[in-house]
């Protein structure tokens, strides 16, 4: 994907070029933000940007100008002369993203951009990524967080064991692979099994989890009413909209993938 791996199967073209022969030309137009922040710990924040920019053949004055812009963008202006090591996780990630933008890439690859960050840091990062998107940079994000995918992505591809199992906008995927709403029902633990029969048939699909039943329906309130009519009295019930998480789990299953 970064134009550095080896194609094992099929054909790969990036920006209309073949990575096997035009690797350097492709990489010149890509930004890469790996899952682990592999920043240069021997260098300061700003030096990380300067040195990286030079790897793209940018002139000295160009890397300084670009670094100034990106330090502001990444909200790291005050830490510019600091070493990388003491920075927080969110700062390091923002620096990694700033670094990957040094060459003004047309396409930015982000591998799990917010994994391991606290909620504040996550939102700051999402905000920055939104801005980039608005500026016309194509973002390619791999993520396990469905809320992140829902927030940031126009188009989604669900992969299961390396195969594409679904593709489309978040909204279209929910419409296609799930119902509009989900009713979550909780019963006494020992009790749950007894209610499965009574609940089934109400929605399009019923999922039995260890601690609750999920009923996939188009109208959650109507479903609850008809359940009450059948005499089903759960300890608690919750009607919510279907999310990408429902779609993802439906498509790829709930078994642990290691």
């Amino acid at each position: 994907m970064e134009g550095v791996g080896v194609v094992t199967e099929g054909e790969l073209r990036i920006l209309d070029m073949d990575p096997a022969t035009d690797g350097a030309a492709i990489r010149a137009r890509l930004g890469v933000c790996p899952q682990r922040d592999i920043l240069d710990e021997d260098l300061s924040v700003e030096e990380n940007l300067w040195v990286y920019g030079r790897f793209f053949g940018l002139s000295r004055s160009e890397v300084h100008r670009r670094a100034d812009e990106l330090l502001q963008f990444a909200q790291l202006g005050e830490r510019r002369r600091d070493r990388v090591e003491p920075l927080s996780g969110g700062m390091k990630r923002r620096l990694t993203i700033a670094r990957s933008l040094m060459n003004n890439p047309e396409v930015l690859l982000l591998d799990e951009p917010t994994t391991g960050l606290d909620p504040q840091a996550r939102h700051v990062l999402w905000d920055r990524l939104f801005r980039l998107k608005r500026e016309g940079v194509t973002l390619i994000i791999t993520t396990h967080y469905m809320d992140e995918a829902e927030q940031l992505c126009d188009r989604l591809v669900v992969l299961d064991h390396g195969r594409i199992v679904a593709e489309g906008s978040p909204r279209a995927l929910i419409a296609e692979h799930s119902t509009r709403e989900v009713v979550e029902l909780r019963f006494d633990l020992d009790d749950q099994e007894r209610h499965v029969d009574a609940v089934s048939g109400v929605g399009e699909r019923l999922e039995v989890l260890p601690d609750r039943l999920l009923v996939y329906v188009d109208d959650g309130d109507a479903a609850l009413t008809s359940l009450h009519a059948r005499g089903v009295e759960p300890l608690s019930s919750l009607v919510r909209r279907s999310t990408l998480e429902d779609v993802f789990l439906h498509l790829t299953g709930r078994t642990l993938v290691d």
Partner: protein
Amino acid sequence: MSVASVATRASRALPFPAGVGMARHVVGRNVVAFRRAWLLLISGFAEPVLYLFSLGVGIGALVGGVTTDGGTTVSYATFVAPALLAASAMNGAVFDSTYNVFFKLRYQRLYDAMLATPLGPRDVAVGEITWSLMRGALYSSMFLVVALVAGMVHSWWALLALPAAVLIGLAFGAVGMFATTYMSSWQHFDYVTLAIQPMFLFSATFFPLSTYPEALQWVVRVTPLYHGVALERGLMLGEVGWSLLGNAAYLAALGAVGIVGASRRIGQLLLT
């Protein structure tokens, strides 16, 4: 086919030094990093100078004159100084290309980040080795100045001792880097010490080759440091002959093998 694409094809076919264009940015990275650690310069320079005064001057006072393999008799310090120059060029290059490269490769993951840019594996290998040679050249010139001031330099040929030291650094640095790509734990560095230590002691470093038993002389002649020592000694003492070209060719060949091997291995390790 355009001129430019012919040029790129030609440069891809050459193992060295086609990568120099981008490799200079790898050197640039090291220069920036080194600005903060310039005190380390002293250590690289101190090692051979301390040896020179303890062995050359100290022990030299007990030994008296030494007759070289070239047939001239010189003071022990003068005899041992070129060998120390060669040995420290070796040590510096080996340390840089093994410990430092291993750390950058496996722990800092520095090269992973570099290879996501237009830089290729060969740029990384050439850049790292070039940087190591630049530092080595600096250490060697400081040592030469000390040797000159102490009266241990006897020929104008000694001007060539500096490029010769760089050549020794190239040979050991390239092979060291190649070897490092096969190492997976710090224990493996014991093998490096195992190879370096005997060479340091027995490459006609501290006594002339003629003092070794006949059979051992041939073993010594095969080792790379022997050729480095012979080259430096020939130049610094002015015992210049065609054999010096042979010594230089041996080191150059070793360096070429190391660079080609190291670039290939870095490519395999990081691009698959």
